[in-house]
């Protein structure tokens, strides 16, 4: 077989998976052209990533929720509410009544634990009380919305003075000391990028070797090489863009970590397999010895924790907790997951896909903002893209 036949075959077989990347790529190229390059500038890309952050972590959790055939509408206001709690916990009691003056390193675990607890409550309603998650989380949506208003009633917007906390949403990782080479480039970011590429290549080679040792089919050599070059180019490109500005932002680091961990759990571990099994056929999963109830708790608990994280990212980015924080986050997260290929019927979807979905949606916003397109048209375009993505997903599904 020739190189092109091979490439065509691999692409056809994986069109669903690669489709999203291609879509993201096309969107980025489009905006780069229409904004004369502003879109791809370091500054804008960093902004884009930081803006995606708080939706991206929600989309990750939502992916798991939708995989097990549930939904969680409460995550937006839960994020907003927990952000406000974090702000109050850090605040100086002289400025904000009820302020606890707690240090950042205590506030973050506290907020995350509260998130887990909130998630477990929804989980309890769904798993134990058998209330449809749509209703259970709609109740949460109302309750947390009210709760935000309650805790910010006397103060209105709570300004956060803590610079460490504010760095989460606005700051960058430090650089290694200047050694004279590559001035104006963030060297630690560059170094991390190089390390990432090396790890990726090693990992891919290992997997390939292991597969070969079992005599399993592997990608044809040229295609494998092409894939490696392509992935390395993407990582390299993004690294270069980021390093040219202030380097990797803390938000990016957090999102990367969350994605890596969740992707690993979902694709490599027994836990992940069990979650997919429940989504695929809960009755069969139960009879296979998997406790559906327990995993509903786990998945909602994780969603709660990620909601807290989203709240932290957002509050920190604004450097304040507002009375409307979290509005519509849940729908953005759900949209991102669907754009990323999660199936409403359950059992299908990838964490990385949802991250790409989130990037697609924020790229649209960012690009259209730069082009000066009004907010009304932005909604329409994003709606159309969501519909198109799901149509693509549904029509390619049967053929796989």
């Amino acid at each position, binding site marked *: 077989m020739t190189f092109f036949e091979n490439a065509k075959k691999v692409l056809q077989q994986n069109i669903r998976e690669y489709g999203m990347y291609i879509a993201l790529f096309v969107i980025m190229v489009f905006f780069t052209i229409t904004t004369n390059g502003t879109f791809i500038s370091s500054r804008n890309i960093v902004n884009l990533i930081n803006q995606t952050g708080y939706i991206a972590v929600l989309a990750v959790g939502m992916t798991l929720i939708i995989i097990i055939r549930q939904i969680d509408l409460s995550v937006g206001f839960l994020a907003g509410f927990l952000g406000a709690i974090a702000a109050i916990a850090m605040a100086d009691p002289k400025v904000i009544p009820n302020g606890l003056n707690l240090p950042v390193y205590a506030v973050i675990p506290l907020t995350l634990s509260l998130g887990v607890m909130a998630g477990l409550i929804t989980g309890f309603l769904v798993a134990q009380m058998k209330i449809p998650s749509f209703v259970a989380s709609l109740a949460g949506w109302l309750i947390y919305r009210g709760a935000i208003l309650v805790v910010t009633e006397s103060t209105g917007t709570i300004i956060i003075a803590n610079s460490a906390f504010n760095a989460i949403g606005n700051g960058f990782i430090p650089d290694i000391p200047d050694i004279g080479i590559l001035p104006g480039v963030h060297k630690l970011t560059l170094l991390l990028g190089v390390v990432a590429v090396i790890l990726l290549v090693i990992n891919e080679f290992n997997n390939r070797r292991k597969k070969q040792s079992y005599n399993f089919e592997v990608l044809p050599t040229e295609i494998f090489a092409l894939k490696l070059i392509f992935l390395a180019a993407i990582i390299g490109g993004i690294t270069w863009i980021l390093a040219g500005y202030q380097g990797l932002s803390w938000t990016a680091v957090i999102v990367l970590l969350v994605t890596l961990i969740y992707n690993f759990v979902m694709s490599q*571990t027994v836990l992940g397999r069990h979650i*997919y099994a429940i989504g695929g056929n809960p009755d*069969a999963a139960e009879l296979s010895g998997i406790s559906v109830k327990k995993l509903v708790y786990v998945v909602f608990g994780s969603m709660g924790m990620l909601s807290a994280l989203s709240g932290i990212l957002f509050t920190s980015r604004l450097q304040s907790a507002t009375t409307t924080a979290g509005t519509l986050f849940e729908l953005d997260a759900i949209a991102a997951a669907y754009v990323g290929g999660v199936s409403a019927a359950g059992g299908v979807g990838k964490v990385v896909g949802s991250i790409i979905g989130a990037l697609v949606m924020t790229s649209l916003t960012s690009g259209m903002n730069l082009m000066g397109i009004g907010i009304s048209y932005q909604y329409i375009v994003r709606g159309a893209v969501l519909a198109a993505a799901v149509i693509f997903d549904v029509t390619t599904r049967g053929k796989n």
Partner: protein
Amino acid sequence: MNAPILEMKNITKEFPGVKALSDVSFQVAKGEIHCLVGENGAGKSTLMKILSGVYPHGNYNGDVIFNGRVQKFSGISDSEKAGIAIIYQELALIPEMTVYENIFLGHEIKNGLLIDWNETIKQAGEMLKKVNLDINPATKVRNLGVGKQQLVEIAKALSKDVKLLILDEPTSSLNETDSENLLALLRDLKHQGVTSIMISHKLKEVIEIADTITVLRDGQTVATLSKDEVTEHKLIKHMVGREINNIYPKREHKPSQEIVLEVKNWNAYHPTLGRAILKDVSFNLKKGEIIGFAGLIGSGRTELALSIFGNPDGYRLSGELFINGIKKQFHHPQDAIKTGIAYVTEDRKGDGLILIQDVKQNITLANLYKISQRGIVNNNAEIQVANQYKADLNIKTPSVEQKVSNLSGGNQQKVCLGKWLFVGPDILILDEPTRGIDVGAKYEIYTIMKDLVKQGMSIIMISSELPEVLGMSDRVYIVSAGKIAGELNAEEATQEKVMQLATN
């Protein structure tokens, strides 16, 4: 022979990696009952799906000539318009709707814009009469047994003025009486001028009812036999391509006296049905033994199995359960599995398989930890395990990475079996293990069962096929209306005795 109502010429259909049909020709005469037989994965269902427009024109090669015209169906609605109706093995009725609503679903009788319910109910009644079903058309489908639901499906087909009726394994989940009824109905319809095609693995009923039989093997037509020349032996030979003389492998092994499982005074109450479903059940199972649970469909055998297997449906239980002499209480199937019990469900699509996942993931699902280290699944070991079972059980699939929804019914059943064998249980509960399985594969499964008990496994077999229960079991328990109605040794058990106990 009458003029053909249907001719399928040189039909070829490929799926990625599988040639399901190659150059198949198939002819059905007007007014006959034509049976289609063949091994699992031979292509029977695929051929019928082409005929009924599930695989639209252009998706296959060859011609479908129905009523003298080349038909180019682009969907089921086209074939329905032409007078073809297909009834799948999985019933397609809506349980929460009434019988009359179901019968006219999709082609409602209208009076202007509104549905004419009175006329609907009247006509539904007429259709029910045609299928000899004496029920109130206002009954909810949910409240009917499978046999009656099957008849409602046929009534639905008749209401569409069907000329050719296709039934894909209609009797596989029916009991003897219901099967008899169904076959009688097919004969009736034949006299009313309806042509039928029936797929079945039950060769006895095929021989009983067919005017003509077509045998498929590996996607090709290997024989077309008329009813005068056919024998079961001949059919089997055409189907599997070799002779099979014994249907049941020889019993050469004696179970030990050690009791591995004992149930005493077992009662179960179904909270949603609001009634007792098991009453004072006691039985035991010895090491290396196969016991059979015979009884009518709905007699409570599956519920008994589930109540032992961790009680996933949440019945209220009382009574005692002993495993190896130790009293146990399971709160979840997980507990039962850990104790060495496996349960192969009767409903492979409903609660057996994860249809959207592939063969390997289904096989390893119940025992993922075995191929994992520290919670991380070894994907390559998984493929190896799956390939092993693919070979051992002779699962027909191009690769273990094929989605199970793409497998033929019989091969899906083998995946289910493989999944539970991989758990390595001491006690294996098989619920209708050979439903939808061809004769050759049945023999393979029986042989596997014999091997397993020889290695010390104990098996509970629930089956509605009496010959199979009698042929395989060391002892038979007869279940009737949630009670044990009797126990017979292999030597004393006969069809008559079992049926008598089962219907008492």
